[in-house]
């Protein structure tokens, strides 16, 4: 079982991304959960969302305590919330930042763990013209963790989730953002 914790701010689409991730995994006949940690919902407030993905049925119904993957959607959260809480040396950290993985490691002063970075803010502004970093972050994590979900399933789910709600132009922009982050994510 892979457990994921998302750190974002209200309005950045992290809850939607977490739902798309679970849906994509279930599409691939895996078992998955997406559970947002609902608090006082307001734009800009730090929030968390959780995912579990497994080959076996999942009976757990509680917050993720020891995440295998931590996704940081908003770089301003790096030093304001405990992003490493519950992680061990093998954890994978995927961060939206303009820093390289080694620069970020130095900035955070952290040893061990695999660190991946992608400039999701830049991708979002260029492709979507809005700071919606959720879809690029999905692209990044589907690249980083092979066993999680394939990018094709994620694409399929984005089409289902957004298909009727947004224009073809915007849908294409989202798919480009997903694809770019998938290609541009770097790790060490």
């Amino acid at each position, binding site marked *: 079982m892979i457990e994921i914790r998302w750190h974002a701010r209200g309005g950045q689409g992290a809850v939607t991304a977490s739902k798309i991730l679970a849906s994509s995994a279930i599409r691939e006949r895996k078992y998955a959960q997406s*559970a947002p940690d609902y608090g006082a919902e307001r734009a800009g407030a730090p929030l968390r969302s959780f995912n579990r993905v497994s080959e076996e*049925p999942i009976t757990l119904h509680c917050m993720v*305590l020891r995440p295998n993957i931590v996704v940081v959607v908003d770089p301003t959260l790096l030093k304001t919330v405990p992003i490493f809480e519950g992680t061990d040396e093998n954890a994978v950290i995927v961060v939206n930042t303009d820093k390289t993985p080694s620069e970020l490691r130095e900035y955070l002063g952290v040893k061990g763990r695999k660190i991946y970075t992608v400039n999701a803010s830049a991708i979002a502004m260029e492709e979507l013209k809005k700071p919606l970093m959720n879809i690029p972050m999905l692209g990044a994590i589907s690249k980083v963790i092979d066993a999680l979900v394939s990018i094709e399933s994620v694409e399929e789910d984005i089409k289902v989730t957004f298909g009727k709600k947004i224009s073809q132009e915007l849908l294409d922009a989202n798919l480009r953002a997903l694809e770019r982050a998938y290609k541009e994510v770097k790790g060490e």
Partner: protein
Amino acid sequence: MAVRLMTERKVVPYTGNMATAEALRQINPDVVAAYPITPQTEIMHFFANYVANGLVDTEFMTVESEHSALSAAVGAAAAGARAMTATAGPGLALMWEILGVASGMRLPIVIPVVNRALSAPINIHCDHSDMMGARDQGCIMLFSENAEEQYDNVIQAVRIAEDERVRLPVIIGMDGFIISHSIENVSLLTDDEVKKFVGKQTLTHSLLDIDNPVTHGPIAMADSYMEFKRQQREAMMNAYKVIREAGEEFAELKGKKYEHIETYKTEDAEYILIVMGSAAGTAKYTVDGLREKGEKVGLIKVRTFRPFPYYDVVDVIDASNVKAIGVMDRAETFGGYSGPLFEEVCTSLYTRGKIYPITGIVYGLGGRDCNLNHIEEAFDVVKRKAAGMDVPPVTYLNLRV
């Protein structure tokens, strides 16, 4: 005629609210009355979409309060309609008066509830205070562990409520946010399968049957009131059997068996926890972990809270090697010895002459997380009780100190 959407069985990524709305669509009730309250509102958002798109034949009534929502369902059900509503927490509290009207008039209204804490302080998150507050209003009560169980239970509830041996409202609870707003795998039946399973309601004393005029809900003075109540008690006892029958028939259809209780590794268990709702899933995982360490622990999940399956619970405890029992309540009974589930289990044991060390555990009020560590703590309390150590009547789990 409602449009058929689900022509083959599917496993879908659904939240508890989506699963409930899908069940409502497939049941295609005659009347649904709706009033919004978090975290239930979504159910009616989804269902209103089905109505707007012509996928159901339902008369959808948006009313001005939960009191009115259930009142509208009472009127519709008395006329002979298959009527439903849904609510959560304080909404169920506001329905309280009419819950007794619905059960006293023997109206088979199906009410999915998203379990939410009661005010004050205001809290939108999960606990079972809402349904426990409505405990004695004569409704059948089922608790679901996850989204798929809520879907399955809502479908079975129609059959249970409308059975002529029963004819009582059924409340089906799922944990607010934890289940209602979390996506997981849900296996759906086809529209035709659900339609066939719920069947058509046999009209009984319909208000609209002008050839055989009847009065519903009149006054009953001291000379007849008790006979009505006695009949309700009998209907509730009959429900014990009917719920089991519906569960068996559902198992033939879907392959998943629903009983009054579910047991998990209790056969040789020395320490047993009894729990309802989503925490049962977390507890199963914890039991597996502790078993790997050689600890003889087990779990009883109570699905039917009303009528309470006292024989089932005691039979399972009696067949185990239990040294002590912990009963986990997600609701308070201020001034009582422990929570409402605790009291039911104690009564069940005592009346069968079975006395075991037993302790009350209160957890998860207002959405407080109940994770693996907390379930382990609960087992630790039970072990202390078994060892004859001093344990308070109620232990609060995950309490800030």
